[in-house]
């Protein structure tokens, strides 16, 4: 089976993430990660209407689909939130009791800056911790949550040797050896699953990718399943809902861009949003009051 060529790399990742979501799941969002978020919302809009999203942006649980936006995503989640939490609730009540599977099927697709063959990840520094070459934003709640999560899902938009490393520069979340349960990694080249014996296995190739390409871009050895599972692209219906209703600005593509290019893209997208007029009016009103 071949994928329709009219789907983007981001949409391939969305499809692979969507495949892992079941109805009734509790889906943990990251901060500013529109790619997995668009898959979560697409699931709510299609086969998983009972799925609930835990949205850090808004500090709310959201149980319904809605469009993504750069400037007003927080407003959308707050308006549609059915329950507001604090981070004391998340850390003291949900994480210890819910994530290990006592209540709800929790899923989180995290994006590691580095990942090794045992599923350990690093989101803190590239280079030595004390004198880093690149200081990353930090691992937020991953060192707290990953050790207790029943299954760990990851996504890597750019599959290369900077991401798939033999040795991490810093361990910000544990892997199999320390009791964590890495399960699946979705990339622009492949879908890979940790087999029962703990070895990372290529299960599916993304359209156009080859095994050689996956191996060349991974700094540790991979096993390849004897029978690869064919890639399942988004259906016509899923694609329409994603592009028309959920993410018409293609914010899911942002994770593929870097530097000035990315900033210009964000600036143009934000300037065209209706929120710009909302902000203009609000600031004008506020400035008059402040004088």
């Amino acid at each position, binding site marked *: 089976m071949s994928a329709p060529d009219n789907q983007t790399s981001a949409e391939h990742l969305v499809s692979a993430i969507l495949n892992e979501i079941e109805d009734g799941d509790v889906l943990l969002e990251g*901060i500013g990660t529109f790619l997995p978020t668009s898959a979560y919302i697409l699931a709510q809009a299609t086969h998983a209407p009972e799925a609930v999203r835990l949205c850090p942006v808004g*500090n709310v649980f959201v149980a319904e689909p809605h469009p993504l936006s750069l400037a007003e995503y927080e407003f959308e989640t707050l308006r549609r939130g059915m329950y507001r939490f604090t*981070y*004391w609730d998340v850390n003291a009540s949900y994480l210890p009791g819910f994530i290990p599977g006592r209540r709800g099927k929790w899923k989180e697709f995290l994006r590691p800056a580095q990942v090794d063959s045992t599923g350990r990840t690093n989101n803190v520094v590239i280079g030595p911790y004390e004198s880093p070459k690149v200081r990353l934003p930090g691992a937020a709640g991953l060192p707290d949550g990953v*050790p207790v999560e029943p299954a760990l899902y990851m996504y890597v938009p750019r599959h290369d040797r900077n991401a798939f490393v033999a040795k991490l520069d810093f361990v910000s979340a544990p892997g199999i050896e320390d009791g964590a349960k890495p399960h699946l990694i979705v990339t622009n080249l492949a879908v890979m699953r940790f087999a029962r014996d703990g070895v990372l296995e290529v299960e599916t190739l993304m359209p156009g990718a080859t095994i050689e390409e996956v191996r060349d871009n991974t700094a540790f050895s991979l096993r390849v399943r004897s029978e690869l599972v064919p890639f399942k692209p988004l259906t016509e219906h899923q694609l329409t809902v994603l592009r028309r209703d959920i993410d018409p600005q293609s914010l899911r593509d942002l994770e593929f861009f870097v530097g000035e290019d990315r900033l210009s893209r964000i*600036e143009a997208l934000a*300037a065209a949003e209706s929120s710009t007029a909302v902000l*203009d009016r609000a600031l004008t009103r506020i400035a008059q009051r402040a004088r």
Partner: protein
Amino acid sequence: MSRRREGPKLTALDDAARLVRDGDIVGIGGMTLYRKPMGFVRALARAGTKDLTLLAFTCAFEAEILAAAGALSTLRTCYFGLEFLGLAPQLRRAAETSAIRIVEETEYTIALGLQAALMCVPYLPSRDCEVGTDYFRIRPDLRRAPCPVTGEMLTWFPAVAPRVAIIHAPLADEHGNTWLGGQHCVDSQLAMAADVTIVTAERIATRAEIRDAQGGAGLVSFMVDAVVELPGGAHPTSCYPDYPLDVVHIARYLKGARRRETPAYLDRYVNGPASEAEYLARVLEDRDVGAR
């Protein structure tokens, strides 16, 4: 935790900024790019405050501006970046050159650390957090030790508290009752754990307005020591429901930073304006609202 002052707490911005001393641990409310006390941060920078330790659940533009202004010596947070806008360039450079010290936090080190401070206990435990990571190496105060009662191995989080907490909100009354709008994050823990808590509010409201707003008060009068009326005080971060995030403003800052124009940004928006009203006038001028 000190005794709270009684009666009306309305304070001018510059007077409130003087409650922060050089070398203080300052707790910042809100989350990443949402409801951050930016107006207060600009006032701290203008006042030349030095050697601050910032304690925040997640940091973004507020820490970036304080670092650029040279006011920051230590950052205690589990995330510092500008979300979908990318890394925070000034913070990144300061961290890479050791110009500021980073105390690597996690969600638990902050949420449980603040709670431990509120409970007046030295440590609070959890089950398996941080097991198999490098955090124990870089945070020797974070401990893996048995429960003294049952002997089960647990991870222990040390108490932590700011001396001053700064929280921005849409509404507060003159006694300090505060409506947070959205995203409560760990704001009530920060406000209660601090010796001095300052609220900056878009508007001074009546107690009845705050009582009747969605969810009621997020902070009650006894948790707050000073209230500053500060319209637009979260800009360019958002203040739900009053105004959304100013993505274009921050994107332009970042483009400028790539061309080493951060000093020009500070002149225009932080040190240049004599007041926050003038800051807003400059923001509107540069947004070119009339042209749209």
